[in-house]
């Protein structure tokens, strides 16, 4: 019976993918190499800049910011002070800044790329039909898989980490932008058209402002996914809290691993509450 199934010999998808990646790497190295170099330098500079600021000042700034954006409540501010001090106390401040740099840049890039694609999707059924399955693919493919071409393109370090994170974390922003714009009430869209808006006037004066809350929810998700991805990216040499977890794993050090994990959780909570509050406040 299996002969039926064996009728077609094994398709060399793995080899094809490899060849394709090799081809991409060699063909576009003129593009990848400068990115690796310049963007890598830029990221190192950013995290060095953050490290040059005394930890106390950063903690105070984060706390004051938390107090202001949460509507003058103390909860988040107190949590930020205690949490960040704890990370400092455990000697993980440098790793924290590195991880934060990665998350920050990966998220910014995701938003810059994701929002326009979301707008495109909301405006065209064809675009939506093409992009939706790609997004599904991007999100369901195990995140580790992205690390492999990332290394091929950009070597090891921060840059491939950001690249992998981009692929993994951009979809929510695209989806929510599309959703937000499509949810804008038909009457409002009609109103803007009835008064003679051009396409871009409609987009910037009505659709994007109306979809803002939804888009921000998507961005919040993107930021959280970026964080989870930059932790995984430690496997290809991205520095930060993830690397601590990874090395504890390799050496079976439960304690260190746990401490670094808690650090990630604290960072996640602070970032999450920050983005959510920014969203709520502007509504």
């Amino acid at each position, binding site marked *: 019976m299996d002969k039926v199934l064996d009728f077609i010999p094994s398709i060399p998808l793995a080899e094809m993918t490899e060849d394709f990646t090799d081809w991409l790497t060699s063909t576009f190295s003129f593009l990848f190499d400068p990115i690796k170099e310049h963007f890598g330098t830029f990221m190192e500079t950013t995290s060095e800049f953050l490290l040059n600021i005394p930890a106390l000042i950063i903690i105070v700034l984060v706390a004051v910011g938390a107090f202001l954006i949460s509507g003058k409540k103390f909860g988040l501010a107190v949590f930020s002070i205690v949490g960040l001090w704890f990370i400092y106390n455990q000697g993980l401040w440098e790793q924290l800044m590195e991880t934060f740099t990665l998350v920050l840049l990966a998220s910014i890039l995701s938003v810059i790329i994701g929002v326009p694609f979301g707008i495109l999707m909301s405006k065209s059924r064809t675009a939506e039909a093409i992009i939706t399955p790609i997004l599904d693919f991007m999100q369901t493919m195990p995140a580790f898989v992205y690390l492999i071409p990332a290394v091929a393109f950009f070597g090891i370090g921060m840059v491939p980490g950001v690249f992998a994170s981009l692929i993994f974390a951009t979809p929510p922003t695209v989806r929510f932008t599309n959703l937000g714009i499509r949810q804008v*009430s038909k*009457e*409002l869209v*009609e*109103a*803007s*058209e*009835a*008064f*003679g*808006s*051009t396409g871009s*006037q409609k987009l910037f*004066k*009505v659709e994007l*402002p*109306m979809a*803002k809350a939804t888009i921000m929810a998507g961005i919040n998700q993107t930021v959280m996914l970026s964080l989870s991805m930059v932790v995984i990216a430690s496997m290809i040499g991205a520095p930060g809290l993830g690397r601590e977890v990874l090395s504890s794993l390799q050496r079976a050090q439960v304690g260190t691993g746990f401490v670094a994990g808690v650090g990630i959780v604290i960072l996640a909570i602070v970032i999450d509450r920050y983005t959510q509050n920014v969203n709520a406040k502007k509504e």
Partner: protein
Amino acid sequence: MPVIEAKNLSKVFGKNKKQAFKLLDQGLTKDEILEKTGATVGVNRATFSVEAGEIFVIMGLSGSGKSTLVRLINRLIEPSEGNIYIDGEDLSAMDKQELRKIRREKLSMVFQRFALFPHRTILENAEFGLEIQNVPKEEREKKAKEALEMVGLGGYLHQKPNQLSGGMQQRVGLARALANDPEVLLMDEAFSALDPLIRKDMQDELIDLQASMKKTIVFITHDLDEALRIGDRIALMKDGAIVQIGSPEEILVNPANDYVEKFVEDVDRSKVLSAHHIMKRPETVNIEKHGPRVALERMREEGLSSMFVVDSKRNLKGYITADDASDARQKGITNFQDILQNDIPKVDKETPMTEIFDMIYDSPIPLAVVENGKLVGIIVRGAVIAALAGEGEVNVDNG
């Protein structure tokens, strides 16, 4: 030249448009066409024209195509067939840019659910139409403020729409539409989402505003009372087609077919009928020729207990009662001077039914309908009740 002119304006939604039109030509109904082709007939060959300064009401039940029709006028919905002309220019042939220009300068729209931008203040909402024309900030603020003043919202400039009541929100919608001083206002069920009392206020206000603005208004509604109240002319729609166009009175008094008749059956006729619709030819005696004896005889003939007295030019002089006339005859009086009574309840031809109720309720004698001092008719209680019930003969020609 009419401001708006629609010629065979049609909209079919869905595929098989050609087949749907063919079946329409064969006289099939909307439901039959939906079943056979899967296409929905939105508007079926609407032809009408609206003159400058007119309030043209398009009325129909939900699903009759009236909201589609109003969107065909500014091409928010593309017509499948037919043409729409604004000031003689064919809108259906325009490219996007020309269409935008017309929308910006000539056509404004007011929406059923207000469609205010929640992220903008009242002032910014009113400015919207000017803002997208890139009018300088100062000028557009000035115009928007004027429009808001006009609808009585001068004091709410910096509130957000959700801080206002429904009636006030729709005033903002109206101000937004008026701010760029359009020729034509398209009002899509503009007052339908408001509660009845507020709705009435808004109708009154629209009528007041219209008296000074003289815009051309296309007003969509499903409420016949509203249509009768504000419309100069009414177009009645059914299944996408216009069934009848006419003044409120024509629609009510001469329904074109059973559908219209059924539609107007429940209307509060007291709001549209006035004295001349229900008055009767008066039985009178002439003060110059007749005396109490003739009067009594005529009253007996007609079965009346009183009668109006006029002179030879039909000027109303007063009335006499049967009792007084019979007293006078016994006393041998031969003229009316002593028994003539002058406290006559008078109305003119245009007095609405609602006022007639109160007068006739208190009056022992019929009401006199007077024009320039001359008696032109009388109104008796029975006629009022019959007219309200929609049964009595209603006069149109002598209006």
